């Protein structure tokens, strides 16, 4: 990718006030989530029986209040936040690599290989992933591995498509032909030439993929199919809070608002990046 392209894109991002605000919000959210344990010494698992379902207040030890079991919500909210964000990043990285590899190979090799690989993607894209996960749960029961495998699956399909499209469009360019003529093997060409050149659009879609993954994990956790006790993710916390809405409305508030802010700012940032790079979906 040429340096001027990156510079132009960076300038456009800087001019996009919404994207800048999103970056700011994200920074704050991440900082809060990481710093939370230092700010409040309460442990995640401590059950404070003296203050069950306590309303929030800055005067006492439980700033965000406590839940039905007396657990401090400040700590739990940000632990949930850390879990959700970690899932987003880790699963995102795995999705990215899978999608990048799959798409680059399909786009580069073309022909029957490409055709078969694309059919696989199409079939897998057919039914909404949730049903597939629910299905897997029926078979395997509540299983952490199922959760993480399916969360990865959310992202890699779209990524593979994008990468394949980009690969197809640069495959014909001269430097690829030069590399091949120079005797480079397919793997080498893909790794050294194809991958660096598709990184631009990939970066954009990766940024849009992370909130999808976080959303999906939250969704599964909300339904009870994801993160299990005693671990918390934003999804489980929201589920808890929704159940206690009338009696203890504060349980819902912090994780709900955090998740909303996280998802919105990631999406705005992703949109901003997409506009900055002027990426269009191929085909």
């Amino acid at each position, binding site marked *: 990718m040429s340096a001027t392209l990156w510079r132009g894109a960076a300038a456009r991002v800087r001019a996009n006030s919404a994207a800048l605000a999103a970056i700011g919000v994200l920074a704050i959210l991440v900082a809060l989530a990481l710093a939370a344990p230092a700010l409040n010494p309460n442990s995640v698992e401590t059950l404070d029986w003296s203050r069950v379902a306590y309303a929030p207040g800055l005067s006492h030890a439980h700033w965000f209040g406590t839940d039905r079991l007396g657990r401090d919500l400040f700590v739990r909210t940000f632990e949930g936040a850390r879990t959700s964000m970690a899932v987003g990043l880790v699963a995102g990285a795995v999705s990215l690599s899978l999608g990048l590899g799959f798409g680059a190979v399909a786009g580069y090799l073309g022909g029957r290989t490409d055709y078969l690989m694309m059919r696989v993607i199409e079939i897998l894209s057919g039914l*909404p992933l949730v049903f597939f996960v629910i299905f897997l749960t029926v*078979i395997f029961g509540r299983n952490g591995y199922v959760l993480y495998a399916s969360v990865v699956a959310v992202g890699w399909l779209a990524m593979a498509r994008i990468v394949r499209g980009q690969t197809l469009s640069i495959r014909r360019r001269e430097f690829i032909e030069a590399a091949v003529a120079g005797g480079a093997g397919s793997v080498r060409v893909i790794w050294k030439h194809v991958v660096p050149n598709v990184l631009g659009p990939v970066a954009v879609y990766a940024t849009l993929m992370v909130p999808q993954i976080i959303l999906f994990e939250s969704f599964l956790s909300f339904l009870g199919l994801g993160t299990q006790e005693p671990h918390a993710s934003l999804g489980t916390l929201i589920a808890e809070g929704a159940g206690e809405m009338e009696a203890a409305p504060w349980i819902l508030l912090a994780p709900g608002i955090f998740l909303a802010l996280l998802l919105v700012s990631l999406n705005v940032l992703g949109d901003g990046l997409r506009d900055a790079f002027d990426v269009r979906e191929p085909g």
Partner: protein
Amino acid sequence: MPRYFLKRLGAAIPTLFIIVTLSFFLTRLAPGGPFDEERALPPEIMANLQSAYGLDQPVWVQYGRYLRALSHGDFGPSFRYKDFTVSELIAQGLPVTLELGSIAMALALAIGIPLGTLAALHRHSATDYGAVSLAVLGIAIPSFVVLPLLGLVFGVALHWLPVAGWEPGSVRYLVLPVIALTLPPLAYITRLTRGGMLETLGSPFIRTALAKGLPLRTVIGRHALRPALVPVAGYLAPAVASIMTGSLVVESIAGLPGVGRYLVQGALNRDYTLVLGMVILYSSVLIGMGLVVDLLHAWLDPRVRFA
């Protein structure tokens, strides 16, 4: 054109068949069974239960029986809800879910298309920025976050609307769930319409229509709308999928007696027949939507009909 449609219909039936078959064998081959969670039962009772539900037969036989029953519209008994067959459960819950989902879909289209069009026509105006912002929020924030937050504001704080519950025929209980379910597809449709309209408005044939002195409403209505809505047509199947997944959540939070909770509960309870029945139901809906979208595509762009 009818030939094209028949061809697609013909392709849909084997797809459905494959889904049913795959699902069936996957559930049967999985470790454990629907009765594992219960207290350990004496072996004879277990054996009786197995035999009563036909679980002691070889898988192929079970499959054959299932298919035969299916052809009569019989999805089998629910393993968990002992007194009901799956068909009965579906019949009970489907009307609620359908009502919820179709209102959401209709609202998303009825609000999204005009909003997107207005945003495109008044670029850089307050309407435009408002529509775009609404779209970002709707796309980013999922229903299961929106609904509880809405419930907090309008239910707990303001006491205007009930947070959960259900009364047949009552509208109040549907308001918040419908809003939460409508927002994501509404957001996408607004964005897609705006984008499609912006692109179409730059086309040469729009310039011709304007040069003919036609009023704006005719130019938009007759000349711009159909090509502008092509991306929306492409989104319809994902929209239905989104509403279906959203309803799972919305129904459980709002305590609505729809069909969505069966899927989740069925999964958690390892209730094979229920899950199988639900999967078939949802798959059929999605495949049906795919066909509808194809038809719509052909209507929107006549060139497709002759391809």
